[in-house]
């Protein structure tokens, strides 16, 4: 080391080297420099700046946090002001000794401080009964009274037979659009519409499985247009169009033969002719009519298929018809 220093000293005359020597001296600390001046001959070259005593770093004193504010909350405070909206649980703001979570056997669940379990679950601290009460009171001024003479469900149905169902959605996305919101469904009881036999049959064929036989309700749901308004108009159009279409009688409907019938009807079938022939065997003048009970039993037997009940019924009716005991 010292050799190197001497070498440097010798070369100090060289102006280009002088600069570097000065820089090196800057690297060494003050104390070391003084020491090196003490014995002039061997100055120590300190190549490692790490040996320089670092100035002690300032210790940053962090202020103590305030005690949780639950401690200063008065007991009669207005809770909806403290917790006005949905928020993640915070132990310093909720003055309840809550505990939640799993622990060892016979130990109480962890307290509310630093408890992730309590933060995970959604809380309803903002929906306390007083808060809901207050909000309802505030919203009352936007509500109108219930219409007069519409108190019972029968009356609603009587006066307003068509039911329209629309939906609005609220979600946290940049877009306010919701594809589901465009759907509109229209419901009506078919008993509210006036049909004749032909048109009812045709109407039911037109609407297909949109008609519920059990409760007589027709449901038309539309979602093919992009907006709710368009879908609403379209549903109304469908209902109107189907209704009037069902009253149209096409030319080809007259060519419907027995084979095209979807149900067995006693009136139009061979069975009626044969029965009448049996009943009126050998008699002239007044022709006997077939008993409607027998006609019914034949229809059910063929339409619903053979089963014990239908067969028994058919047997009874046949006996009655023929006067057998």
């Amino acid at each position, binding site marked *: 080391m010292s050799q190197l220093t001497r070498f440097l000293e010798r070369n100090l005359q060289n102006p280009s080297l002088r600069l570097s020597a000065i820089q090196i001296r800057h690297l060494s600390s003050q104390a070391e420099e003084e020491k090196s001046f003490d014995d002039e001959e061997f100055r120590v070259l300190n190549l490692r700046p790490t040996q320089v005593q670092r100035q002690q770093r*300032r210790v940053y004193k962090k*202020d103590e*946090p*305030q*005690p*949780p*504010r639950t401690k*200063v*909350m008065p007991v009669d*405070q*207005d809770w*909806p*002001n*403290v917790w*006005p909206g949905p928020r993640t649980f*915070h132990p*310093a*703001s909720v003055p309840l000794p809550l505990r939640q979570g799993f622990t060892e056997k016979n130990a109480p669940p962890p307290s509310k401080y630093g408890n992730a379990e309590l933060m995970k679950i959604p809380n309803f601290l903002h929906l306390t009964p007083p*808060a809901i009460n*207050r*909000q309802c*009171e*505030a*919203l009352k*001024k*936007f*509500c*109108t*009274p219930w*219409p*007069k*003479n*519409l108190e019972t469900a029968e009356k*609603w149905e*009587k*006066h*307003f*037979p*068509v*039911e*329209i*169902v*629309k*939906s*609005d*959605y*609220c*979600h*946290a*996305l*940049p*877009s*306010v*659009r*919701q*594809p*589901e919101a465009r759907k509109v469904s229209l419901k009506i009881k078919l008993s*509210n519409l006036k049909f004749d036999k032909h048109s009812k049959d045709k109407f039911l064929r037109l609407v297909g499985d949109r008609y519920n036989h059990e409760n007589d309700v027709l449901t038309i749901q539309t979602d093919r247009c992009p907006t709710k308004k368009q879908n609403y108009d379209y549903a109304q159009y469908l209902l109107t169009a189907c209704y009037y279409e069902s009253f149209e009688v096409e030319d080809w409907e007259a060519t419907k033969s027995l084979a095209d019938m979807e149900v067995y009807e006693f009136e139009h079938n061979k069975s009626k002719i044969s029965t009448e022939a049996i009943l009126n065997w050998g008699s002239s003048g007044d022709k006997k009519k077939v008993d409607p009970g027998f006609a019914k039993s034949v229809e059910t037997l063929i339409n619903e298929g053979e089963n014990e009940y239908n067969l028994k019924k058919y047997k009874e009716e046949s006996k009655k018809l023929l006067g057998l005991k």
Partner: protein
Amino acid sequence: MSLIRVSTTLNSLRQSSLRLSTVISRWKSTEAAESIEIPNRIHRSPTAILEALASTVGRDPTAPHYKYHDDPYMVPNSNMTKRTYAMAQESGRKAAKWIKENNRELFMHSEAEPPIAAFAPEMVFTEESEVSEQTLKDLIQQCEITDAVFVYNLMKTKGIEIDDALKQSLLELVCFYNNSEPISEEFIEERWFKQGAANRDRLSKSWKDGDLAEQLFNELPKTAQSYSALIRGMCKYYQVERAYALFHESIEKQIELDTKTFNSLLLVSSFIKESGEMRWEFCVDLLRQMKERQLRPDIGTLNAALKTISTIGHHKLCRTGAIKVLSEFKAIGIEPSLGSYCYVLNIFCREKGPTSHVLVDILNEIQGKEFQIQDIRDTSFFVTAMEICRNHLHDKNLAKKLNELLHTGKNYDLIGDSYKESVYYRHYFGLLCRTEELETFMETYNHLVPNIYIPEPGIMEEILKAVEVNGALELIPRLWTDMTVFEHVNRESLVLQVLKIMQENKPMLNLEKHQGLNEQFAKIADNIYHKIADQDPIKVQKLSFSGQMLGDIISLLVRGAENQKAIDVFKFAEDHQHSIPGTPNESVLLELVDACIEEKSPSVAISCLQYSVENNMNGLQLADKIKKGFTLNENHLAKVNHLVNEK
């Protein structure tokens, strides 16, 4: 008829959404046997429901303002941290904005539907940009002054014709902002914390002479609109001479100016005319001219006239003037705004003038009313009125009435900015502290401190005085904690006062609320001692000990039975005798010697004696005490005798 059903469904988009409402409506059938009365729908604005819900929520005094995080680690506790935290948040917002502008290509997508213009990067105009009249129109609409001026210049160099109407609107924009960019409206916090400082240096001429506004004006045909715009701009930025000259020019050319222009001239009348009488004459003259032109004055005229009057020094003149103006405006049906009342207060309640009870009448008039901002000065009313309550009338009931008005409806919006808010509460506290009973005052204190208002050191001093006068020593520990939290502890006067109160007033131990106070006081004293002794050597404004202070600390420690600590403090005082001005009282040293006797440390007691002798105190009493208290060995005895006899 509608039923509202709320149910949650899973949305096909990656987030769950709330199916807000399912509306079921029915068509009415044609045959109606009984008449059904369906009430009409109550119409409401799009935000009416939100406002109604918001009106059910009040301010929670235990919580910080909602801009801060509600967490003990992040709630600001002093005025400085309040400001720092809010500004830090703001600077984060600015950084985000900067990144958005510097990485434009990353933000070109628009996810929101309908698109949100504020989320998209701002348009950048260069020499090559395609610009049209529509571009300029849009920019003026959005008040983008810098861009608008740039586009205007670009259009000029490209030789695109600009319509006079568009030029006029550009002139209006340039005059309004004086051709410089204002603070963006997004930066609420900056405005909230800055305005107090900004208002003060605005009273000098800042109009840009010969700038774009005047060029535009010269290019335009000389119409009433162009004159109005330029005159108003010049008045706003205090280029009053030229504004006045333009006004004369317009009169010569028989151009009909509007009310707002007259108002702006009235506002700067104190710059146009020197003396009070001349200002008043000028004001009357302008009003007369308005009458000749059949211009209907508005609230701005009233406020401008009152402002002119408030600048007149002559007492009688301005009082009579103000009354005249007010009654005339009342006759034509113009309701004064809060700003007008503020000027009235300035006129009637002057520092050296006679006491005026005009504020009582004003408050009776406007009690329970809700105000909307009409004039920039409206925001000064509450702070001015509270100052008058405190300094002029000394009336706590009036102050409470005023405070009630402030909390009526949305009136709190008119408090102004952070500076005005804290001045308002400073006066309120200062007044209550002097006039109210301490107990009721402390209720207000608990309610407002620290989340709404943090007392300044001056107010703290007043509170401490009140505590001392009332002998309510039990409040001292609490106030001391507050002072530590509010960073008042580096105020020497406050520390001295706290020490003095604790030292001079001994807790009465027969009172229940004074139980344990001695120990608490000792803790506080110890705290103070360490705060000063362990100060950061780099700190610029350091607190320094005085002999008195150390004496107080020692005696408090002794009373709190912290004898060893008291001895340590004494040793410190002894070691630094030469750097600490003053000495502890002799009574304190007596107390300390008692403590030494308890601790059985004669050497300290003797150095105590030595200290007193060295500092020219009568050591006889001390020496007696030492002799009685200890059974001294020869050395010690010799020393004591030596010290006493030396005297």
